[in-house]
């Protein structure tokens, strides 16, 4: 199968085009640097490759290096049929610079280039024109106008790509002589830029019209008072939304799981099998599924923020404050994404301009409260913080407690970064490889449908991945907790014996042996905690009705001091093997993930013990 390369500037709509051409749902957003690795998928006998965005064929950041190395390799492959260069019609001149470089390089390898002028819908919406025919004649390559968002022009693009002939071996050999460095001399840069400027002025839209609406909104979002206030309100809204909007859905799922478990168990005559269905399958795995709506809403709200174009403004506003902690404004995007999942967030740090700031961002990101912590927070906040409201019903106390738990992670992440910045060897450069120059994309009304689909896919992926691990752990926990004496005798079970043995470790944090066992099992992955606890309380209960885990926890004698200590422990501890693996991959060091694991666990233990003692003393 032949390859079609999709290249272009950051935030020009490459991934949206890739999704539309292949039918996939890769993550898209309205800020530069969302794609940091090459992704491929096939459709109609063509394999499309989505490259990370790059401003030119000179790499200054790791994601750009991935794109340029990938492009060079692809030109040497006979499987490469053509390259698409995606241009943003609203910022044509900047896009043309890369296109001119691509045309020059691809010509040497006889690889056809198609210029796809994307975001045409915005030009049409504002009554602005662009001369695609004139551009095509001047550039000497095919130019197609598209709107990946609306699906316009894609049929013509697909038809055109099919028509390109297979490149012959002679062309591939000549490509081996490619030297991209010749493109990056001062004279060449000025030449490309002058030509891009001329083409843009002659055939492109008048930028003033397009920038006017952007300026009006920026006057508010980047104003002295409006900027910081809007930022804080948006973050508060994010956490309120997670807790308030998800509640009815969570209650619904809880009810379905409880009644399904009770019904299925009542159909089974073997008492051990019935106990297994009720306590391991439904109380264990089911307790985790209840929190899926919160995870989904978290993904949706972050998706809306990403797609609106606001995140680039937040990056600018936060650059100075974050630099006090050794970070960059660009660290904000990985840190915000870290609230969904640390793994892609750590990879997103590739766009950060300096190696030192990138390393500090990687180390601070695991402190952000990811979606796997959400079930634990929701369980403890829902069970132990009163459901009262403040400011005339505007803010819920539970939402505020949620915000506080997230804030603890953010503050500790920043403090850890500041401390590590002072401890880090001077060998890790403070100088950036690239300047801090952030492009502010136009504001756009978020494309809700792809955000919903992407959020649903990510939530389902999260459940699927975590579900297998949770099920395995709950089965082991159930066997150890059920035998030798059966249901209702948890204290005298094998697990009870082990639990009492390890209990002294958890006593300073106000936790009993059952919580201790759940904490230990969750060092594989945080989401295991709720499942383990569900199984444990399921075995302990002699009642045939399942009931909610929150009620069981409230009736267990656990106090507010233990609950908050546990929540703080979860907000700070490193309990994710996959995150440690990605830190190892991104830093190229085995020691760093070990330090992260040990450091975060010690900090979490001490902080939880302090919280427990302090609340008890009040």
């Amino acid at each position, binding site marked *: 199968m032949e390859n079609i390369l999709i290249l272009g500037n950051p935030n020009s709509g490459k991934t949206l085009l890739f999704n539309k051409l292949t039918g996939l749902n890769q993550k898209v957003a309205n800020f530069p640097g969302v794609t940091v690795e090459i992704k491929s998928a096939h459709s109609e006998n063509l394999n499309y490759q989505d490259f990370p965005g790059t401003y030119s064929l000179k790499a200054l950041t790791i994601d750009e290096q991935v794109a340029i190395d990938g492009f060079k390799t692809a030109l040497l492959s006979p499987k490469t049929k053509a390259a698409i260069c995606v241009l943003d019609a609203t910022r044509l001149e900047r896009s043309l610079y890369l296109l001119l470089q691509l045309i020059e390089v691809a010509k040497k390898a006889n690889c056809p280039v198609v210029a796809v002028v994307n975001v045409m819908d915005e030009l049409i919406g504002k009554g602005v024109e662009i001369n695609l025919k004139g551009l095509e004649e001047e550039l000497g390559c095919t130019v197609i106008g598209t709107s990946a968002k609306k699906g316009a022009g894609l049929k013509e693009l697909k038809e055109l790509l099919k028509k390109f002939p297979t490149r012959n071996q002679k062309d591939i050999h000549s490509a081996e002589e490619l030297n991209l460095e010749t493109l*990056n001399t001062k004279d060449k840069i000025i030449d490309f*830029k002058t030509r891009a400027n001329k083409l843009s002025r002659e055939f492109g839209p008048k930028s003033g019209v397009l920038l006017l609406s952007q300026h009006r909104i920026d006057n508010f979002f980047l104003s002295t008072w409006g900027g910081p206030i809007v930022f804080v309100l948006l973050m508060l809204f994010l956490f309120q939304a997670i807790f308030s909007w998800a509640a009815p859905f969570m209650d619904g799922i809880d009810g379905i799981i409880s009644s399904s478990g009770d019904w299925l168990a009542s159909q089974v005559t073997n008492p051990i099998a019935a106990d297994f269905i009720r306590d391991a399958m439904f109380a264990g795995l089911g307790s985790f599924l209840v929190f899926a709506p919160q995870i989904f809403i978290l993904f949706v709200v972050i998706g809306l923020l990403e797609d609106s174009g606001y995140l680039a403004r937040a990056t600018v506003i936060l650059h100075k404050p974050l630099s006090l902690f050794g970070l960059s404004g660009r660290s904000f995007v990985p840190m915000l994404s870290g609230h969904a999942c640390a793994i892609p967030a750590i990879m997103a740090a590739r766009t950060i301009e300096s190696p030192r700031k990138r390393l500090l961002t990687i180390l601070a990101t695991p402190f952000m409260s990811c979606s796997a912590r959400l079930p634990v927070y929701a369980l403890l906040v829902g069970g132990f913080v009163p459901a009262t409201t403040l400011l005339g019903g505007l803010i819920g106390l539970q939402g505020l407690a949620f915000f506080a738990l997230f804030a603890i992670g953010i503050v500790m992440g920043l403090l850890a970064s500041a401390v590590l910045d002072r401890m880090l060897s001077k060998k890790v450069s403070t100088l950036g490889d690239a300047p801090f*120059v952030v492009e502010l994309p136009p504001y756009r009304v978020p494309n809700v449908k792809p955000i919903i689909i992407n959020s649903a896919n990510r939530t389902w992926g999260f459940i699927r991945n975590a579900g297998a691990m949770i099920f395995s752990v709950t089965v082991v926990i159930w066997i150890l907790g059920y035998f030798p004496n059966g249901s209702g005798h948890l204290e005298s079970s094998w697990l009870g014996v082990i639990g009492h043995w390890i209990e002294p470790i958890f006593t300073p944090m106000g936790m009993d042996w059952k919580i201790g066992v759940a904490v230990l099992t969750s060092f594989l992955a945080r989401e295991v905690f709720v499942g383990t606890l569900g199984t444990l309380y399921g075995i302990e209960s002699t009642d045939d009705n399942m009931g909610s885990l929150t009620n069981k926890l409230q009736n267990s004698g656990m106090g507010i001091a233990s609950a908050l200590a546990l929540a703080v422990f979860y907000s700070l501890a490193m309990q994710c093997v996959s995150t440690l693996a990605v830190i190892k991959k991104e830093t190229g060091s085995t020691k760093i993930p070990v330090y992260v694991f040990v450091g975060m666990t010690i900090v979490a233990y001490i902080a939880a013990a302090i919280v427990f003692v302090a609340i008890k003393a009040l």
Partner: protein
Amino acid sequence: MSFFILTPHGAVLIIQHRPMKIAKTLIQLSRNERALITGFSTKLSANYLTRLRELGFREGEFVTCLKTPPLGAPRVFEICGSVFSVESEIARECEIEIYPAELLSTEIQ
């Protein structure tokens, strides 16, 4: 040089004659002011220069300061139809000549 004129309504009209061009750096460009990029300090690394030029910050190009955001955030500039936020340390090394939109500016006190 400034001229003071007393209007019939009693207000003082100040007509200020600014020089044709003022050599400064990008960090000194005030909001809504427009300038011509004339060069870059030798303190900027080759990588930085390359990236700035790729984005449009090159000699002979006009740049407008759009915003001076809060919290000491990097200033926002418009160049070649795109909007960029440029770190102060970088803006300080970018040499410009300010060309006032009108050579005579009028202020009423």
